[in-house]
Structures are given as C-alpha cells and as structure tokens.
C-alpha cells in the first residue's frame, strides 16, 4: 500500500472485534480511499457499525469492547498504546444514526467542538462556514441563538454534520445518518455528502442499498457468518461493479433482495 500519494487514508489489517467473549467482527482487511465515499452495507447485526467505530476508537466508550489487529491511519496504527483517542477523534469525526444535537443553541452546537479543540480564529466565521458547508446556513442564519432541538429531524442531522466538520476533520464517519429521516431530508443529506466528499473522506454505514448505490464510490458488503455469528467482509469494490456484477453469490442474493 502506498501512502505517500495519499490515495489511501485507512488500512485495516486482520481486524477482530469483541464484545466480552463474543466476536462481532472477524478477520477483516480493508482499505479506504481518500476523498471518496465508501459505503458499508449488509444485514443488521453483521458488524458494520462496530467496524466503523474502530476508525475513531468510539468502541472505547463501550466497556466490554475489545479490538485486535491493526487500524492504520496514514500508516499509524490507531490502536497503538501511545495513540490518544481524543486526538484521533479530532481528525476523524462522526455523525450518528439518530440526530443528537446538544440541548444548546445552534451556534453553540457548532462552536463547542471547535472551542474544546482549541480553536483560536474567528468563531462567527467558522460557525457560518461550517453551517454553509452543511447546507444549513440559509435555514438557520436568523435563529442561531435558538435551541438546536427546535429544528426538524433533517435539519438536526445537518446541524450534526456542521458540528462534525467545524473542527476540520479529515474523515467523516456516518452511521446510518438517514435512517431516522424522511425521503426528502434523506436526499438533501445525500446531495450534501456529494458536496462534502470534495474535501473530506466519508465512510457511511447504510442498510439502504439504493442509497449506497446513489452516493458511494466504493461499497463493502458485510455478512454474519452462519457458524459463529461473527460479521465478516464478503466483498469490497467499486460500487458500480458490486451492484451490477458482484463476484460473490451472497452479495448478489443480498442486492437483488433474495437475501434471507
């Protein structure tokens, strides 16, 4: 793998994830390309979120979670003992399944992450810029001091995206960001992702195959092993190819809806 040209951001090697003694993900190898959208698809419970959370060590928040193998970020293993997860998360932001704005003002929602990360510049400018990038500025510019909880679901999720990009991360992880939204709000987020990918590397978990087909450049298909119920990567490649001529019979079953 060649990192010098910056083509690959992440390189996962022999990843195994455990919750207590239960192995949720086994023997996964995967590389994530820079400034592209990579989608993780697969039936629920097959370990998509678990893998996603290894990219910014959010698994650390779950007391029973344990990870073996390597998650290389520009060649640096994020699970090295001397890597500080707090630092990792500034570089690799995350958007969650359910919109979770802070119960604070819209302005404060965006500014907080920047402030705790030591931002010294013009805060008003940063807030505006982040909200613009999240395609939310026009809708909220007159009510920046109102609670973020007063927005609609789709707006809340875009606020969360604005909040995530305010600390200027390199990667944005999204865990089913549209599953709580209506179709129109979903399309808005998808448009937004196509805009953001010019500047950010995006990894998105989705159970919506059309969404993966619409927005992503690469697709990874995960499935639970019948024997030990551990998730594993079945097929990974350019989205177009995965959806038109999958190599693996199981992938084909899933995308044609013959799964299960």
């Amino acid at each position: 793998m060649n990192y010098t040209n910056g083509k690959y951001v992440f390189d996962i090697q022999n990843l195994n994830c455990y919750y207590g003694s239960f192995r949720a993900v086994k023997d996964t190898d995967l590389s994530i390309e820079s400034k592209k959208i990579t989608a993780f698809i697969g039936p629920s419970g097959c370990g998509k979120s678990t893998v996603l959370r290894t990219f910014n060590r959010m698994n650390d928040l779950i007391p029973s979670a344990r990870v073996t193998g390597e998650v290389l970020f520009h060649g640096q293993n994020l699970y090295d003992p001397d890597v500080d997860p707090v630092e990792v998360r500034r570089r690799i932001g995350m958007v969650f399944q359910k919109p979770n704005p802070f119960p604070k003002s819209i302005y404060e929602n965006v500014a907080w992450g920047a402030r705790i990360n030591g931002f010294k510049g013009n805060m008003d400018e940063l807030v505006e810029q982040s909200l613009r990038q999240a395609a939310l500025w026009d809708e909220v510019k007159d009510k920046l001091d109102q609670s973020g909880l007063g927005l609609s679901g789709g707006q809340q999720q875009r606020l969360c995206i604005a909040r995530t990009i305010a600390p200027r991360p390199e990667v944005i992880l999204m865990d089913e960001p549209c599953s709580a939204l209506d179709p129109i709000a979903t399309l808005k987020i998808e448009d937004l992702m196509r805009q953001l990918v010019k500047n950010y590397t995006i990894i998105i978990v989705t159970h919506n195959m059309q969404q993966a087909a619409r927005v992503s450049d690469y697709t990874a298909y995960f499935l639970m092993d019948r024997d030990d119920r551990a998730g594993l990567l079945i097929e990974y490649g350019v989205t177009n190819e995965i959806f038109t001529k999958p190599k693996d019979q199981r992938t084909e079953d899933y995308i044609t809806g013959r799964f299960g």
Partner: protein
Amino acid sequence: MSVKPDSSVASYPEDDGLQSFVKRRHRQGLTWRIVFQAATIVAILALLALLYNIIIGSFGYVALQNKIEPESLHVDGMPLEELSKEQLVIILSEHISKGLMRRLEHDQPFTERTRQDVYNLVIERVVEQRVVKSWSLTVSFFKRDEIETFMAGLPQGKLEFRSWLHWNFLITPQSSTPELAGIRTAIFGTLWVIFITVAVAFPLGVGAAIYLEEYAAHVGNPWLRRLNAIIQTNINNLAGVPSIIYGMLGLVIFVRVMEPLTSGAFLGAVEDATTANGRTILSAGLTLAILILPLIIINAQEAIRAVPNSLRQAGMGLGATKWQTIWHHVLPNAIPGILTGNILAMSRAIGETAPLVVIGASTFITVDPNGPFSKFTTLPIQIYQWTARPQDEFRNIAAAAIIVLLVLLLTLNASAVLLRNRYGKKSL
C-alpha cells in the same frame, strides 16, 4: 398463509357476548380506579389529621392567673398603665428582693431604662401572670361549658384566647417557663447544622455518583471493579439503615475520635473547650451528612443515568475529553434531577432527631450558636423535649414549634425548587 375465516375466529366472543365482555373489562378497570382513589384519599386524610393535631395545639383558650392583681397596685386610683416611670420603679422595689433589684440595676441602670421597659418588668416580676390551664382549639370551640366550669372555680382567673405561635416565640431563646420559652436558639441551630450537612454531603455525594456512573464501568483492574460493585450494592443498603445507627456512628467517630477537630480545639479558637467537647454543630452536620449521603448518591446517579448516551457520544466524538463531556453536557442535563434529590435529602436531614439525641444535642441552651464549634439544639430536638414535659403548656409550644419547622421546611424546599428551575432552564 390463508385469509379464510377458520374455526379459531369463532372462538372469540361476538355480538352480545362481545358487548358484555367489553363491559366486564371496563368494570374491572373501574374497580381498580376506585381502589386507587381510596388509597389517595386515605393518604390525604392522614396528612390532614396530622395538620389538625398540630393546629389545635397551637391555638386555644388559656386560663390566666396573677400572683398580684394589677388593681391592687393602683396608686391614688391611677391604673398601672398610666403611672410614671418613677412610680413604677417604686412598685418594683417594694415587691421584689433587694438582690434582684441590684441585678436589674446592674444589667441596665433604671435611670437609663424606658418607661415601657420598667412597665414590662412590673408585669413580669410583680404581677407575675401565669397560665393555669390551657385548652386545645377544638375544646375552646365545642366544650365551652367545661371551660366555664373550670373558670368558675378560679375567681381570680382570667380567660384569654391565645396563639402560642407569635413573634416573640420566634425570637426568644429557651426558658423553663413555657409562656416565656422561644425557639430562637433552635432555629439558628437547625440552620447551621443543615448548612454544614448540605455543604459536605452535596459535593461528596455528587462526586461519588459521577465516579460510579461515568468512570466505574471503565475500570480495568478486576479488584477495583469488584470493589466498585460492592460499594454500589452497599450504598443502596445504607439508604435503609435506621438513622439512630448513624447517630451511634457519629458519636464514636465525630464526637469521640475526632474531638480535637470537631470541638475546634485544633484551631485554639474556643474560649472554653470543655463546654461543647465534640458535641458541636460540626459533629451534628457531619453525622447528618453521612446519613443523607446514600440518598444523594442514589438520586444523583439516577439523574446522571437519565442523560441520553447520545450526548456523551456526540461530545466524545468531537474530540472532547471525558471530563469535558461530563462537565459541559452530562452535568448540566443532570443538575435538575440532582437538585431534586438533594432537596429530598435535605428535608430528611432537617427532620432528623434520633441521631442528634445520640451525639448529644444540648437539652437546655439559651445562647445563639455562633459557629460550627458551638453547642447546639435543633427544632426537632426542642419539639421532642417539650412533648416529653408533663405540663400541658409545653405541648402547646411544641405544636407551635412544629408549625415553624414545617414552614422552614417548605421555605427551604421552595427556594431549592426555584434554584433548580433556574438551572434547568439554562440548558435550553
């Protein structure tokens, strides 16, 4: 799957059967509703009975009798109220001992006293009015004949309707005469003790709750994990330990073992270290703090647990440290719940009597407490002691003191609720 009606459909009640079946279910619901309403009514009646009991004791008729009738003190036919200061001084000196006269002169020379002051002295020392008998509010209203019969046998007596709860009652210290006794010392004692209790228990309890909720689950060391689990179970058990046990604990630890600290001797600040020993406001406050600590911890834990995990994830996901996430997001959202728990715990501490009796609250004290190292008494202790006295009048002032205690409790609770509402709004 077939959609055809099959035999199992027929086994549901239909038509008339359905109607009576639904009716029966409604009847069941109604029965339970009545049971629950009855339970509520019983609870309210119990509270009303309590209030009734207190109120009838605090107001009612009293039979008064004077040692010397004011009429016999008239000078040249002029009533006592119209006499000059000099005449009143003469009356005073004629009726009380020389020693007492000298003491009064020593307290404040008569030349400097006002006429009203001397008049009060005459009433108090010479006329010496005292309560012969007191009746409750109910008796005062409904058993007038009983009162009149009693008064008939007391020709010198005077009947007067009296509220035992009055301003002087609040601002005068203890006295062995019920008519002159007040609760000033006890009010100050209660305020001091509660202040120390809350100042100690609140930060300790909330701190422990934060640790147990936010950090304990992530402890790696298996021994420490086990210790945390043991602590958690025991906190729940501690909340049920009888309060007198805490009193015994306080007696041994704060009054005896830590005496140099709790008596204030380590500061050298006490003029007379022998009077209070370790039986100080500080010991009482610390004992009650230990008593309510489990309550505060449990309530704060619940409040912290109620903060959605998604907020923690959002904070941590942005690159905040654990502490930043707790301080900026978890605590602001938990604080209304934490304060509610604290209010409940504080109310409990204000009413506690047994542990303070055990650690040695003063039985008779007339000086205001002036700091954590003072001797003390509190309202519940005062009430407890008065109710144990044989004279009826002490029960009257005990009832009046209970009203004060209730009002104090409600005031403190109300201010805590206001505080909570203000904090609650801050997080939008």
